[in-house]
């Protein structure tokens, strides 16, 4: 182990930055990154991933397929794909579609707010993945693999680029209840410091969101006094023992923690936003989460993952019309507000926003009123971060079942996200158990057509 690795190991993670930089004696804008490959031209610095677990239905939101009416209830040969559960005939979307913006991209009536910002959005209609079951498919979209040992996208990114703010985690995951689930947060074989830090966005008070953030016994001044007493003893101990990286690192880390309490109390508190902004996002967990995501990337957090609702809420095996009418408004409102707000603040160019679920849903019905899981073809969208706005990319077949034109796999998606934050996905590697691992394994092509 060389000195640099030693320092990183001793004081890695949050707050390591100040110390590592101090010891290395050269400060950088972002510190702690391990990516050594060529810098890709992508301009994004941060990523916000809006995640709709369960599998949102593309044919009811983005992928208008009028032929579903013509062949309603039928099962033409091309839709005879094996699904997780048995499915019936084609089920037309009950929602009306219309064109929005200068680009004229079609959206269903479920997404009126998305319509107002659609010219900043690239809708990818030709996504596909490799597994029709929730957990493995989620693991695939989060980590590129169904295996439980692989690091997630956020972990790779924070490993690759380090953090920009010593007082906040580089990789944050927001969800109601604060548990995004295993594969999302996973650091896998990467050092534990790169794992995602989960927070609950069903709370708005920072001290309820972050464990141990507030000292319940002492005010700021008394706490400083207590910390001074600890540090005085720590310095006595160091003086007796001699120089040691761990002893010094922990002294610095305690100072960072002390500062973090107040910085996080500030950054995590969306109540500091104006009423108008809060109303624009909506006072729902997802609205709060999107707003908080913006505040976090503003302060240098590298990767923020925002779950819409708890569990796998978008898993509409039945009653899809009723469910989507209930579930879409707050999602639509908050997602659109995020794009609008980032743009107003001049942050959209350096922030890549990605939207989607682990797969889509079938155009054929399940149990008459629902749709089954569909890994063959589904819709995701991206905005900002050097991605073309007002573009509808790729296509599914005539019924919206399978991606057929300009197909984009989840590995391609990962390659593209990495490319936009300056990383060549074939060069971000980690040597483990005898070989170099990549987020994209041996797959993945950057989708150049959608880039500015």
């Amino acid at each position: 182990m060389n000195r640099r690795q030693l320092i990183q190991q001793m004081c890695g993670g949050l707050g390591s930055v100040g110390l590592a930089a101090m010891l290395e004696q050269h400060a950088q804008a972002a510190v702690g990154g391990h990516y050594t490959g060529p810098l890709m031209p992508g301009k994004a610095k941060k990523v916000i991933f809006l995640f709709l677990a369960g599998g949102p239905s593309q044919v009811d939101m983005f992928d208008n397929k009028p032929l579903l009416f013509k062949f309603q209830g039928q099962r033409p040969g091309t839709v005879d794909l094996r699904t997780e559960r048995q499915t019936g005939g084609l089920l037309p979307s009950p929602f009306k579609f219309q064109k929005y913006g200068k680009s004229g991209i079609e959206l269903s009536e479920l997404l009126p707010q998305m319509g107002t910002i659609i010219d900043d959005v690239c809708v990818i209609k030709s996504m596909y993945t490799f597994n029709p079951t929730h957990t493995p498919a989620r693991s695939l979209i989060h980590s590129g693999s169904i295996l439980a040992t692989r690091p997630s996208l956020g972990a790779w990114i924070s490993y690759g680029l380090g953090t920009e703010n010593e007082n906040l985690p580089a990789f944050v995951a927001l969800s109601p209840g604060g548990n995004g689930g295993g594969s999302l947060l996973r650091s896998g074989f990467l050092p534990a410091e790169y794992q995602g830090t989960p927070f609950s966005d069903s709370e708005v008070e920072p001290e309820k969101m972050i464990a141990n953030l507030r000292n319940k016994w002492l005010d700021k001044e008394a706490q400083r006094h207590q910390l001074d007493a600890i540090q005085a003893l720590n310095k006595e101990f160091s003086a007796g023992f001699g120089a040691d990286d761990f002893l010094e690192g922990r002294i610095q880390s305690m100072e960072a923690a002390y500062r973090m309490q107040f910085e996080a109390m500030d950054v995590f508190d969306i109540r500091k936003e104006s009423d108008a902004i809060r109303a624009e996002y909506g006072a729902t967990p997802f609205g709060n989460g999107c707003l908080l995501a913006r505040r976090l990337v503003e302060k240098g957090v590298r990767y923020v993952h925002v779950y819409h609702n708890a569990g796998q809420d978008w898993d509409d095996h039945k009653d899809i019309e009723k469910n989507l009418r209930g579930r879409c408004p707050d999602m639509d409102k908050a997602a659109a507000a995020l794009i609008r707000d980032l743009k107003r603040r001049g942050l959209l160019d350096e922030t890549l926003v990605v939207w989607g679920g682990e797969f889509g849903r079938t155009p054929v019905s399940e149990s008459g009123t629902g749709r089954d899981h569909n890994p063959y073809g589904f819709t995701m969208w991206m905005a900002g971060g050097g991605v073309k706005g007002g573009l509808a990319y790729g296509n599914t077949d005539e019924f919206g079942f399978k991606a057929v034109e300009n197909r984009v796999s989840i590995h391609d998606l990962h390659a593209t996200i990495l490319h936009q934050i300056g990383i060549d996905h074939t060069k971000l590697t980690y040597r483990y158990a005898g070989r170099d691992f990549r987020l994209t394994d041996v797959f993945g092509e950057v989708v150049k057509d959608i880039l500015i």
Partner: protein
Amino acid sequence: MRRILLFPIAIALQAQSPDPAFFESKIRPVLAASCYGCHSSKMKSPMGGLVLDTKAGLRNGGATGPAIVPGKPAESRLLTALRYTDPHVQMPPSGKLAQPVIDNFETWIAAGAIDPRIDTVAATASGPLKGMSVEDGRKWWAFQPVKELPAPAVKDSAWLRRKIDAFLLARLEQKNLTPSPRADKRTLVQRLYIDLLGLRPTYDEIESFVSDTSPGAYAKLVDRLLGSKHYGEAWGRHWLDVARYAEDNPTSEATNPPYPYAWRYRDWVIEALNNDVPYDRFIKLQLAADKLPDTRREDLRALGYLGAAPVYHKDQRLSYDVIFTFLSDDWDERVDAVTRGLLGLTVACARCHDHKFDPIPTKDYYGLASVFASTMRSERPTFDVDPQIELRFQWAQRRLFDLAYSRNLLTGEASTVVGSEERVARWKQEIATLQTEIEAWRERYPILVQTLEKYWREPQKQARQAVNARRRPGASEDPFMNTVYDAAQYVDGSDANYTWLTYKPGEPRDLPVFLRGNVAIPGDPAPRRFLSVLSNGDGKLTNGSGRLELAEKIFKDAAPLTARVIVNRVWAWHFGKPIAGTPSDFGTQGDKPTHPELLDDLAARFIANGWSLKWLHREILLSAAWQQASNRRSEGDRADQINSLLWRQNPRRLDIESYRDSILRIAGTLNENVYGVSQDLDAEANTRRTIYGRVGRGRLNGLLKLYDFPEATQTAPARDLTTTPLQQLFVMNGAFIRGQANVVAKAVETEPDNNARLRALYRRILARDPSPKELDLGLTYLAQGKLEEYAHILLSTNEVLFQK
């Protein structure tokens, strides 16, 4: 009749007259128009690694194997893809080609796939990277026999205490470095307690050692601590990192529920280490306790090593290929855990191709995977049962679960599989038949029947609850163990809408090599075997699953490597740094040992001393090297800053177990009972040692996660200890430390004055008296601050978390 015959004849004729023009006119234009877009040698990473614009690319294929087999259309993946018959491989993705075009491809392949293209050198030169051959591998240092070596000559022979010191000192002297002086007695006793027990000693324990001036006092203390029941708790935890011990699965869904009895495996590990079960037997029991003669029933708990291993959820509505892939991922984990954990070899690299660096062909990988394809996890009773009934019980528990799960799946409202009723009726019938058979055991073994009757109990709602209950985490004290037994695992894809897993008790299963790791492309047979490069003889494993022979070969054929690997791990747990820097990789990509002769000599003597870990501990702990002071010295820093030559002992940061347990012990709240069912670490009332806390693969306890506990989805080579602000928030603001601080403060508040209270706090928390300056600092604080705050301050200092 005639029309039917025409087609084969046409193909036969084509085959007799291969014509390059056919390729140029019918095949190449289609490849260029429909395929090169994604499959071109000009691309940096062509889709699926498949290149179709070169002759070699077409022949060799991509990630899923050869694209064509000349003369055999039916075996040519290219044709399957063009035909759109396999839902997973349909090419080109933009739509199926016209049928006559596809027919041309068939004709061309049947005729031998004449491809007149001449590849440029650039297109063919990049052959696959080849690893070391098995023959060359036999010369690799880590596989050579170990033998005791003469201690090297040194100048300062007065420093030597044990043989290992000579090897270390010789290297230091070469570098003109001197070792550090012996640490003071106070440091040594603390270091020993933390190293061997994972607990800080009390003031009295320290003083009693410091005041013992008898010549053998140190060795006596080593022996006493090695004999403590808490030794197994500290060292068992080290092993559990390697064994990726946990009590549930990464997802813990219906078909891969938590392991409620895994804690019995953990207890077995603690007990075995306390009893100094020799390392070879320790491992043999974990791999094959059920097949070893003269095994106590309690030792079957050892099988939790395999029986509580991570497995993936298998939704039976998924296709044969998908389920088979999940299953092969399960086997892969076992291969990885055993080879990296026990042999320090990255055999799992050879799943998709021959190992690119080490002498491990894919046949060896699948030979080992076959052992685990022949081994099924099961729950066994802790009490003795008629062997035939026990075997049947192990099979029936899984079969009944699958039947009940499937019945529920296809009876619920979500069920739309065509012909569900008919299937469900058949499965109910099978459940009923099994019920009749199993009810006959009730008189002799009521508990066995009670664990199974939930699957046939009516109304069905209860049965469904029983199936769902398996998914809930939580340890159980019912008399069972998570184990394995010999049973071949198969995937039954005969029902296109519903995939079954079947288990054949007592039967082995030999897998073929799966090309590129893809279960859809079987290659040559790969019968159960041990690694070729390590085998004396043919390496075949023939007795049942082969687990016992595997365990025996690990300690016979591979004994030198196995001994090096465990000696290196134990060394790292004592010194904070291994001799060979990558404890789970002794292959060509791993770090070479800094002191190869030391490692070899120690490994040889470890074997000669009956693989006794306590012998190894003594050898290390009694050395002068281990007893050195850990302070830095400028000449050492200049010559060897990272201390690879051990010119000082490495100071250590306590791991989370030692840290939490020591704080509880300081407060006097630690429950020192050994063994028992797991508890939630976050429960306020839980004052047991951390090793008894529940360990999850799906969701790891927050405290463990905060302090770098390894993810138990795979074997962990070592812990990466980090220092982060979130840890400091836990220390400064968390309820745990504050709560313990209150307890300590309460215990000393009756002292007459602040001076005495401070002295008492120091003795309890830091196990020493304060210096005048420290006393002064404390008195100044207490002039305004509270006693429990100062207890909290002392508990938060580096001194508690750090050991000289």
